């Protein structure tokens, strides 16, 4: 094996003078076992192996998702329907609505007293972003700062409106 050739290629690689085929030769050479690479070239093994990054792949369901998002709309064939056929589903729907409405109202009556509960937020489901209260405090301070500034802007706009009203009245 002519290691001088590889050494030259490595030299040229770092000078950006190699072609794609030569770069492939280098990648193939350094993909060998360490013992098959001469001592003076072993330092380059990690570099060329790191460039063999073709293992980063997307999951299989990626294709499915893309197919779903990019499918052509199906052409729907129109057909004529008789009046009776048209009305039947409407009558059915009306019957169901009637049932639901009666039951729904019956269910809602006891619900009124629990209106207050409906306003309550389920805080137990909240997952804190930070474990450290100091970090959380920092963010809350930022948030309230932004809020304050917003209020000030609103106030300023309001007072400008009032001022202009006054000047109009004058």
């Amino acid at each position, binding site marked *: 094996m002519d290691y001088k050739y590889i050494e030259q290629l490595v030299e040229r690689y770092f000078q950006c003078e190699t072609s794609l085929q030569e770069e492939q030769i280098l990648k193939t050479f350094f993909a060998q076992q360490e013992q098959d690479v001469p001592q003076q070239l072993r330092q380059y093994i990690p570099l060329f192996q790191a460039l063999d990054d073709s293992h980063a792949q997307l999951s299989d369901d990626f294709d499915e998702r893309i197919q779903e*998002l990019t499918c052509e709309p199906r052409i729907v064939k129109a057909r004529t329907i008789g009046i009776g056929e048209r009305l039947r589903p409407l009558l059915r729907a009306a019957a169901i609505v009637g049932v639901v409405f009666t039951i729904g109202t019956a269910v809602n009556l006891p619900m009124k007293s629990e209106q207050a509960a409906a306003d309550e937020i389920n805080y137990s489901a909240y997952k804190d972003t930070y474990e450290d209260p100091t970090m959380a405090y920092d963010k809350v301070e930022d948030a309230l700062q932004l809020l304050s500034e917003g209020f000030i802007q609103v106030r300023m706009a309001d007072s400008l409106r009032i001022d202009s009203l006054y000047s109009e009245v004058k």
Partner: protein
Amino acid sequence: MKKIDFRTDVLPLKNELYRLALRITLNHAEAEDVAQETMIRVWNRREQWDTIENIEAFCLTICRNLALDRSKLAERQNASLDEGIDAADHSYNANPEEQTVQRDRVELVRRLISQLPEKQRSCMQLRDIEGKSYKEIAEVMGITEQQVKVNIFRARQTIKQKYSETEQYGL
């Protein structure tokens, strides 16, 4: 001109797009999003396909631009809010000296690459990993072939230097 078919010409590019997006955003979830978004955008422009000479370069360009937008947005969000649980994938960003170099030199090189400026990173990705010509890379990056060469030169030199420094001084 050969008629472009989504399934056989565009979909197979998915991993290449994912890898480029990953190289730029340094985050697996973001990279996957970008790859998906790129596909959708390319699909939405199917009327233009007949006019496109190099569909691969077209896809890579869109992918890169989307990935850049995402990482700029993430940068601003990080500036105003530290991400807690949703942290960016730092496995690409850890200080190389903190790792046991003996155990994973390849990992060290990967980290060094991820620390390069984006243009150098992307050029290196497209050349050394995806095997694209300087002409193609120039088209994707929107720069001249000469600039591509300069970026790759700087990238390779930096990696070589930083790697040997770390190896020499251990840590």
